[in-house]
C-alpha cells in the first residue's frame, strides 16, 4: 500500500482513510455530503497523490500519444489540456486520462489503479519511436483546489494571471513559494478549479499554505468520498464503474474524446468507428431514484419485468437533493423520462432516466 506524501497532514486533520487504487487516501474529514456541498458553494482542497503522473518526451512523443489515445494530441498547442481514452484493440477502455501539452513534452495524468498497466501499454507501443515514458508519480505531488472561490484563493499565491488561464489550459509558474509549479485549470468536480503538480517534498507545506489562505473563503479539505459524489453529479465517468475494458467510449457517452481523424491510426479505432457508424446497442444513462436507499454498483435496473442493465455508480446528491445513479440500458430505452425500477436487495424502488450531466455549473437549474 502506497502512502500519500500528505499522510501526516491527513492524520492531523482527523481524516478517515481508505484503500484506493493501491494507496491509502482520505475518504472523508467530516460528513461526505457536507464536504460535497462545501465544494459547490465555496471551495475544497484535495490530495490527489494517488493519481498516476507520467511524462512522454522525445521527438515522437506526439506520435506515440496519437497511437494509444483516442483523442487528437498532435494538434494540441502548448498550454492545452485534453481528455482522452486508452483503448484495447477491441475498443474497450483501458483507462481514461488527461493530457497536458507542455512546450517540450506531454504530461499525462492516469488513474491510480491503472498506472502500471498504462505505463507498460504505452511503452509497448513506443517501439521504433523516439519517445520515452517517465513515471513521475513518486516525484511529483498532485493537489486540486476546486469550487467557485478557487481562483480568488489561489491568485495571491501565484505569479500567474489566473484570469488569463482558461478552462482546460495549463501553465508553469511561480506558486506557493516554489519556482516551477504546473498549474492546470482542470478538475473532476464540475466546478471551476485548479490542479497543481509540485515536488513531493513540498506537498505538506503547500497543502497547509493553501488551507490557511483559503480558510477565510470557506476552503475545506475534501476526501475521495465527496470527490466521487461531485464527479457523479457532474456526469464524469469513474474507471471501474462507468468504464472498463468491457465498455467502449461511444456507449459511455465519451464520443467527444474519440477522433477518427484521417491519416491517424490509434489502437481500437476500427471497432470504435464501426460502433460510431451503427450507433451503440446500449447507452450510459443517468437516473434519479426515490426513497432513502442509495443506488449502488451492480443493482439491477428494470422496466417493468424486463431487465435493462445494471447500476455503474450511485450516490445521494446533496446538490439535487435526491438519489442519482448511472447505468447502461438498451439504446431504445435510453430516453430521458423513461420510468425504471431499481432492485435494492429484493425491493423495487421507482427511478426515472434523466439527462446527463445531473449538474452543470454553467446551467445552474437542473433539467
Amino acid at each position: 500500500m502506497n502512502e500519500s506524501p500528505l499522510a501526516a497532514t491527513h492524520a492531523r486533520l482527523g481524516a478517515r482513510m481508505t484503500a484506493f487504487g493501491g494507496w491509502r487516501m482520505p475518504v472523508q474529514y467530516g460528513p461526505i455530503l457536507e464536504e460535497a456541498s462545501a465544494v459547490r458553494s465555496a471551495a475544497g482542497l484535495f490530495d490527489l497523490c494517488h493519481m498516476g503522473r507520467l511524462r512522454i518526451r522525445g521527438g515522437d512523443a506526439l506520435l506515440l500519444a496519437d497511437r494509444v489515445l483516442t483523442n487528437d494530441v498532435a494538434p494540441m498547442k502548448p498550454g492545452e489540456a485534453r481528455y482522452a481514452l486508452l483503448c484495447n484493440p477491441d475498443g474497450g477502455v483501458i483507462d481514461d486520462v488527461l493530457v497536458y501539452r507542455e512546450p517540450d513534452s506531454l504530461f499525462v495524468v492516469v488513474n491510480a489503479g491503472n498506472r502500471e498497466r498504462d505505463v507498460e501499454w504505452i511503452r509497448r507501443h513506443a517501439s521504433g519511436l523516439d519517445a520515452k515514458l517517465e513515471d513521475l508519480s513518486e516525484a511529483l505531488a498532485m493537489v486540486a483546489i476546486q469550487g467557485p472561490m478557487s481562483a480568488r484563493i489561489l491568485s495571491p499565491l501565484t505569479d500567474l494571471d489566473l484570469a488569463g488561464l482558461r478552462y482546460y489550459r495549463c501553465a508553469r509558474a511561480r506558486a506557493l513559494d516554489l519556482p516551477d509549479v504546473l498549474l492546470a485549470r482542470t478538475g473532476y468536480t464540475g466546478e471551476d478549479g485548479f490542479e497543481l503538480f509540485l515536488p513531493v517534498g513540498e506537498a505538506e507545506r503547500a497543502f497547509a499554505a493553501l488551507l490557511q489562505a483559503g480558510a477565510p473563503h470557506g476552503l475545506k479539505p475534501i476526501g475521495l468520498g465527496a470527490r466521487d459524489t461531485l464527479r457523479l453529479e457532474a456526469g464524469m465517468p469513474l474507471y471501474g464503474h462507468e468504464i472498463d475494458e468491457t465498455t467502449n467510449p461511444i456507449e459511455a457517452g465519451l464520443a467527444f474524446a474519440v477522433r477518427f481523424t484521417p491519416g491517424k491510426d490509434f489502437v481500437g479505432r476500427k471497432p470504435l468507428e464501426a460502433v460510431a457508424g451503427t450507433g451503440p446497442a446500449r447507452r450510459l444513462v443517468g437516473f434519479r431514484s426515490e426513497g432513502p436507499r442509495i443506488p449502488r454498483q451492480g443493482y439491477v435496473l428494470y422496466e417493468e419485468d424486463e431487465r435493462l442493465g445494471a447500476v455503474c455508480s450511485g450516490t445521494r446528491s446533496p446538490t439535487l437533493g435526491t438519489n442519482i445513479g448511472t447505468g447502461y440500458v438498451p439504446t431504445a430505452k435510453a430516453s430521458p423520462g423513461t420510468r425504471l425500477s431499481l432492485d435494492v436487495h429484493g425491493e423495487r424502488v421507482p427511478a426515472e432516466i434523466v439527462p446527463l450531466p445531473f449538474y452543470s455549473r454553467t446551467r445552474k437549474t437542473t433539467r
Partner: protein
Amino acid sequence: MRPNDRRYSETHEWAKPEPGSYLVGITDFAVEQLGDLTFLKLPPVGRKLRQGEAFGEIESVKAVSELYAPVAGTVLEVNAAAPDALELVRQDPFAAGWFLRIRAESGDGGYGKLLAADAYEKTLGAH
C-alpha cells in the same frame, strides 16, 4: 473503554442483558466505519433469529452492511424511532441508538460466546 455491562460480536454488534431480554445495537466503531448513515432496516417484532443470523441492513453514503444477531431469540421490540432518526444511532449507539430487544428462547441465546469489552477492543487493534 467501551461499556462493560454487555458483550460484543466480532461483527460489531452488542447485546446487553436486561431482565428477561437482551438489548441489541451496534458499536461506536461500526458507526465510525460506516460514516454518514442514510438508511436502517430492522426486522418485525416476533421474528425468530439464530445467533449470527442477518436481521437487518444499515447503509451509509458509501457502504451497505448487514446486521447480525449477537444472540439467538425472538424479537420482542424494535427501536421504531431509529430508522427515521439515524442521528440517535450516530450520537448514542450504546443507549438511545439501540436496535432490538431479543428474548432468548433457550439458555442464554449464546451470550456467553460473545466477547467482553476488553477482548472486543483487542479485535479492533488493527484499525
